[in-house]
């Protein structure tokens, strides 16, 4: 990467994707460096331990490399696409685990705290993260819990209903309200939902 020149550092993600499609491993390296932290953090949150998080991150990034041609910019940013791959494969893995390591303790983890960015390039992305975290902080705990159980722990709505002893309709309603409240947060700030 260091020998590949600095051009990759200034290219947009979409341009890196185009280069990857043409077989440019250095472009992939640049993309990996930009998004590995977010991907690994999501992986770690979903899998709950380091080795599984590493495996999921590796699996997802190899999927990114091999499926670069499948990216469609009109459906969202490259980062969103990368993280959706992490999420989807994480859900698959969680559901296939013979012994789920998901516990109530993980569900009840407190809202994440931002950490200082380590590079200028991260500033904008960190700003978006902060907005998202702030939006999540506006959710009632019962809505946040259900979103977390679904999104990070891979439970289906029926499983959440059973786990929490709530009617299925209540679970669906809280999912709907939780997502709506996140959207409302950005609408009220007159900020577009990051994509």
């Amino acid at each position, binding site marked *: 990467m260091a020998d590949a020149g600095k051009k990759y550092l200034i290219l947009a993600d979409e341009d890196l994707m185009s280069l990857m499609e*043409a*077989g*440019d*491993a250095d472009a*992939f390296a640049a993309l*990996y460096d930009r998004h*590995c*932290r*977010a991907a*690994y*953090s*999501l992986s*770690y*949150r979903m899998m709950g331990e*380091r080795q599984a998080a*590493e495996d999921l*991150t*590796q*699996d997802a990034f*190899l999927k990114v*490399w*091999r*499926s670069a*041609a499948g990216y469609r910019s009109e*459906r*969202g940013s490259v980062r*969103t696409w990368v*993280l*959706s791959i992490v*999420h989807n494969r994480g859900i698959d893995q969680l*559901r*296939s685990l*013979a012994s789920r390591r998901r516990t109530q303790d993980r569900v009840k983890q407190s*809202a*994440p705290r*931002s*950490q200082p960015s380590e590079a200028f390039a991260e500033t904008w992305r960190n700003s*978006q*993260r902060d907005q*998202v*975290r702030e*939006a*999540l902080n506006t959710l009632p705990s019962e809505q946040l819990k259900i*979103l*977390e159980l*679904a*999104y990070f722990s*891979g439970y*289906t*709505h*029926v499983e*959440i209903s059973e786990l929490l002893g709530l009617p299925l309709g209540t679970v*669906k309603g809280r*999912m*709907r309200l939780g*997502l709506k409240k*996140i959207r409302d947060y950005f609408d009220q700030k007159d900020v577009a*939902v*990051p*994509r």
Partner: protein
Amino acid sequence: MSPMDDKTFHELKDAYVLGALPEDERAAVDTYLASRPERQAEIEDLMGVAGLLALAPPEHDPPTELRRRVMSVVASEAARPRAARRSPALSWLGRLGGLRNVALGAAALLVVGLLSWNVLLQGDVQSLRSQVEEARTAEETQETREIELGGAWAEQGARAEVTALKNDRAILVVEDMPSIPDDRTGQVWVINNDVPEPSGLLDPSGNMAATAITKPLGGADAIAVTVEPAGGSEKPTTDPVLVKEL
């Protein structure tokens, strides 16, 4: 499952974008969206909101060793021809040409069967469908997923589907299968890192066949079927007639 109506879609769409639907409901929503393209923008918008959750976790730096491992694989694949890189497990399938076209050419496939493990199914379609419905309610078949295969046979009207069960078990059912000579057999291959592994024989009864897939699909790159001499081969000797990248 009967077609989904608008009311059910609205009830399920939030769980859908959160990844919180079981496989059958997720597939039903996919089918609904395929028939209602005007809903696509709505669901993508909602996916954007749900996707924000991915930014929320506490941040962790991935180990540098992980980067080395990933780049090692990528560097090795970057040296290959483009088609092989995109589908490293399928370079031997390259003779078929245009996997993307194959996928596009694959018709919508029916869910045709779930079987007990290690049981070779041979029977009529109606019987299979009955077993499907029974099996779907059984504990063993919770959390299944269906994988449609495309390829030359699909273009000829065959309908082929892998049903992946829990614990890395899977079966392949082919309906309206083209006839093959008596001294030949369909052979299933699970491909990992460009290496096709023999994974079951597909001996037809009438115009259909089914077999357990003997190699795990978890982590595999693709599944394919070729026509081989009776008894099967150690390595594929013909172009695939069915294929699906995983």
